[in-house]
Structure formats: structure tokens, C-alpha cells
């Protein structure tokens, strides 16, 4: 095929009625504090890992809500679990357990 230097992007549309909510449901049950998140981004602003990388713990929240398990899996690998995010969170989201529970939930998908 002729290479015109551009291509068609893979469909990025997320259907909230059909996406994979298994991780989200696991978290709702085992770490319900995630539901209180107001996406203020304080966690991301203080993040130790975020200091050195593009790690974004608010994005983690977005990813499991959207059911995007693959990027989620890669994202949480960057967390150092230091807990600063938890101390600045105005809503008391238990973020360290959230990270551990996401991994447990992902392991259960297999």
C-alpha cells in the first residue's frame, strides 16, 4: 500500500456501558474510599514518583474507571508506595491500598 505518511488511529472511543468494570468493582468492594475522589490532583502534585517521571496517580483513577486495564497495569508499576499522596488527600482516599488492590484485581482477571 502507498505510504502517505499518515494513518488511521485506532478507535479511542470508550463505551461506558460496555467497558470492563471488573477492577472498579473489586475496588468498590475492597477499597471503597476511592469513590470519594474529587479528582483535585493534590496526590499527583506531591507524588515522589511523579517528581522523576510522568506517573500520575489521578490518571490511575481515571484508567480503572474507564476499564483500561492494560495501561493501568503499566502505570501502577511506577508507584513507590511512599504514601505522600494519602497524607495530602482532602478526601481520605486510601491510595496505597488502592494500588495494591488494583494489582490483586488485575491478577484475578486471568
Amino acid at each position: 500500500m502507498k505510504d502517505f505518511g499518515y494513518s488511521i488511529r485506532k478507535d479511542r472511543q470508550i463505551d461506558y456501558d460496555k467497558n470492563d468494570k471488573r477492577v472498579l468493582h473489586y475496588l468498590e468492594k475492597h477499597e471503597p474510599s476511592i469513590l470519594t475522589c474529587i479528582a483535585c490532583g493534590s496526590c499527583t502534585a506531591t507524588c515522589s514518583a511523579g517528581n522523576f517521571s510522568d506517573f500520575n496517580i489521578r490518571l490511575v483513577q481515571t484508567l480503572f474507571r474507564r476499564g483500561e486495564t492494560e495501561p493501568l497495569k503499566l502505570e501502577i508499576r511506577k508507584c513507590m508506595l511512599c504514601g505522600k499522596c494519602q497524607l495530602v488527600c482532602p478526601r481520605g482516599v486510601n491510595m496505597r491500598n488502592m494500588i495494591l488492590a488494583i494489582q490483586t484485581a488485575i491478577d484475578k482477571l486471568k
Partner: protein
Amino acid sequence: MISFNLFVLPFSLGLIYLLYMIARWWYKWISALNPNDKTRFRNGLFSPRFFSAVKEVFLESLIHRKMFKRNALMGYMHMSFALGWFLLIILGNIESRIYSTTHINPPYYPIFLKFFIHDKTVLWFEIYTVPGFFRFIMDLLLLFILSGLALAIVKRSKSRWFGMTRTTHYQLTDKVALTCLWLIFPVRLFAESFTDGYYGGGGGFVTQHLGNLLVLIFQEASQHIAYMLWWTYSLVLGIFFVTLPFSRYWHIPTEILLIFFRHFGIKPQAGHSSFSDVEIGACSRCGVCIDVCQLGVAAHVHDIQAVYFIRSVRDEQVNRDITLRCLVCGRCQQSCPVGIQTDSLRLIERNIFSGSLQSDFGYLPPKTPRQASIVYFAGCMTHLTPGILRAIKGIFLQAGVNYLFLDEQGSVCCGRPMLLSGKHDQAMKLMEANRQLILATQAETLVTSCPICYRMFIEMYDLPMQVVHHSQYILELIKTGKIPLQTHYKKVAYHDPCDLGRGSHVYHAPRELLAKVSDLVHVKNEYEDALCCGGSLGLYTLNPKKRNMVTKNALDILMANQPEIIATACPLCKKTFAKLSDVEVLDIAEMVYPAIPDKTQVTA
């Protein structure tokens, strides 16, 4: 002729089963040791450490020294059962050999001696020694044990007298074993008394008199009652021996092996090993850890205490939430009379529940810091408390310390939070990154403000330099006259951070420092017995409300003597207390800095 009666069977079979179980498990644990530990074990058997282990077995498993230190009544109760029974067996054996009519002395023979022999006058023995010596001593020992039993019964309802507010909830096997244990000695007393009374001799000062009295009441029936009681005695002993491996009393044989393991230098590992298996078996479920657990006392969480956690691991019923619901403050470990390393057991189990997370810290830049002889590492948490950072910078400036602020632009985590989640290998990655960074500075002294980092640097990093917490370093600056101080006399309560106190045994430097700038008040829980602030990174699964209850409880105890300031030496403790405290919460550095007179003005 061998003395035999059918009733000895339950006891004998029970004993054979118990000995088989002990041999089987000991063999299993010892043979499952890794090659290095096996060598340690073998070498230990032929070294002076063997005798020091035997001494500890005697002091802890029989006399229960640690229990005595905790509470005298509790110590006496345990000693009467353990030491009393042990002596009863030893002396009973000697007695039976002296009075034996044959050379064959089966194990049940000393136990049921009075059934088989009624006439205890052996001419040569009675002439050359004190007449009735054994009859007297055996009765005395029986009384000794029965006094312990009486205390055990009282303890059911008055556990407070024994220094315990709460006691362990038992399982069925525990209840069966406990009932049998309680029955053994009263039944023995009555079996012997009836027999002695009926045959009119052979008993000591208790059994003989009680026996005479009983025979007066029961007349001819005494012989049958006695026989029935001998059957009961044998049965309860047999049932006790059979249930023992499945009950809390399994700690008796296991603890002995644990003491030997410890003396031979065998240590816990990141995963399950023979050592951790033996520790799990050695838990006596005494419940001492229940009263010291703040999650139970302050937050009404009653299913996670070390005793229940270890039991659920042993029964393979442990779950993720319970495993992760623990402050890992080390208070249970500190109080455990068996010396079980409850924290390391918790982490081993967390490892299993942490899932397959493969951390990737490839993003950490290969920084090459400049070289400096004094390096300051603030740690993640200190970056959240700018007050501490300001004070430290100020103190260093006044003292003219030429230092490198290693993590001014952001810290690489020390790895402890990762380690506390049970991910040993992932934590190692962080540690290695941090270690290389520290080593590159070629520092002589590493100062840190965070006790969590401090503990990690000391325990895990193996750094070729002096590592100090800032409380130690500032104290040194004052002692060498680098900073002058004006004394203030505000009342201050000092809170020992877990990782600095119990974790690293730094108790005196912070207190000495505070005594120079304030008036230290007494706190009920201090030094090894200090409370956790509730902010612990070891706790994963607990809602913030309950976490606050732990903090509030710790604050109440700190506030008992109405201090004007709560001082601590940890940024995480400070941050945790500050949100709920009525008085100011300050770090030690923040206490010292304002006390420096005539400060050189800092230009921003």
C-alpha cells in the same frame, strides 16, 4: 512381672501419638532448613550456644521468667504448671525406679505408681534416707500445680489481676485440651487419695489424710471409685496428648525448638521458612498481644491481633484484608513472651497477598551528586513538613555545617513502604537506586530527618558511613559547642516514633535534646512501650475514621500531664498528630531552632 492394667492404654496410646507428632514435626522443620541454616544448626549442637539454649529453655519454658516480669501471678501460674509437672515427671520416675519390683519400667508405670504399689517401705531406702521423702515431695508438687490451677480458674473471670484486660477467644480443640489439662491434676489427687485411703498407706501428707477421710465416707466403694478415677486420669491424659498438636499447647514442644533455632543464629527470611513455621507453632495464644494492640484498644478492630493472625496462618484461613490491617508498630513483638517476630511474619504473609506487581523504577535518573562529607537526606515525609526543613536548614547554617542536601529536588523513597507491603524484591530495587546515590557522594556522615529512612539505612543499606537521625546530629552539634542554646521552660511531652524507638533503639538522644530546651513531662507509654501515632505506613486496609481513633487515643495519653507542646522526631508522626491535636505539635528540630540566640540573619 510387669505391672499392667487395661486403663493404662489411653495414656500410653496418647503419649505414643504425641511423641510421634513431635518427632515428625521436628524432623520436618529441621530437614527443611536451607543448607546454610542446616550447617548453623549442626555447628550449634556442638558449641557453647547449645548450653545457653538449654539454659533459656529452662528459664523460659519451665520457670517462665518473661511472664514473671510482666505479672507475678501470671508467672507463678505458668511456672506451677510447667515446672511443677516437669518435676513431677522427673521425681516420679526416680521414685518408681526405687520402688519398682522389676527392671522393666514402662512409661506409664511412674504415672500410675500408686495404683500398682501400695506398700512403699523398701528397707534399704527408708533406712538410709529421709523416710517418706518421695511421698512428701510428690504431694507437695501436686499441691504446687493445683495452686496454679486455682489461679487459672480465677483468671477466667478476673483476668485483670493477671495484668490482662482481654484474653484470647478459643477454638474447639483449645477448649477440649484446656478442659483435659484442668482435669488431670484434680483427678490424680482423688485417684491417689482414694487408693491410699483404701489400702491405708503409701500416701503423703495430702493424699493420705484426704484418702482416710474419703474412705470414712465411701467405705467399701472407695476401691471402685479409685479404679474409676484411675481410668479417668488415664483418659484425660490421653485426650490431652492427642489434642495437644491441634491446640494452643502445641507451643510447648515447638517453643523449645524455636529457642534452639534462635541460639544457633537461624533468622527469619523474606518468605515462609522453617523458622517462620516454628514461630507460628510456638505461639501460645496467651493473648498478651491483644491488650497492647492499638487497633483493638482504640479502634475496636478485634480480628487482626498477632495471636489471631498467627492462628489464621496456621489454619490456612488468612485473608488479604486482615493481613494488611496492621500498624506494624512492633508493640506485639515487644510484648510477646515467646519472642515471636510478629512483624516479620506479617510481612511474609503480605508478600503472598501483594499480587504480581512488578515495579519499574527505570524512570529514576542516574544522578551524579557532588561529593560532600556531610550529606542530609530529608526523606519523602519531611518534604511534606516544610517547618522541619526550615528548622534543619537554619540549625545547619548557625552551626556552620557544610553539607549536601541530597534530595532537595525530590526523594527516592527509602523502600520501607514497599517492604511493609510485603514486596521485598521491589523494595530492593528502590534501595539499590538510593544506595548508589548515597554512595556517590562519598559521605562520612549521613543525616536524615525521617526515622523510617533512618531505620532502613541502618538495617538494610549496609552503608560505609555513619548514619544518624537529626536528633542525634543536633545533640552532637550542641555538645561540641557549635550552637548555643537558650533554655525555655515550656512543658513538653515527647512521643517516641515507632521506627526510631522500638525500630532503631534511639530513645535517649531526643530526650537529652529536649531536656536542654524544655521541661519534659512524663508520658504513660514511653520508650519501648510507646504508642503508634496511627499514621503508620504499615497499615493498608482501615478506614480513615478508625485510623483517627488510634491517633486520638495516642494523643489523649500524651496529653495526660497537660503539656503545652507535643514533640516528636518524625515528620509522619508530626503530620498525623497535627491534624487532631489541640496543642502545637513540633519536631525536635523545630524545638531547637527557636532556642538558638542571636541568629545570623538568613538572606533568602
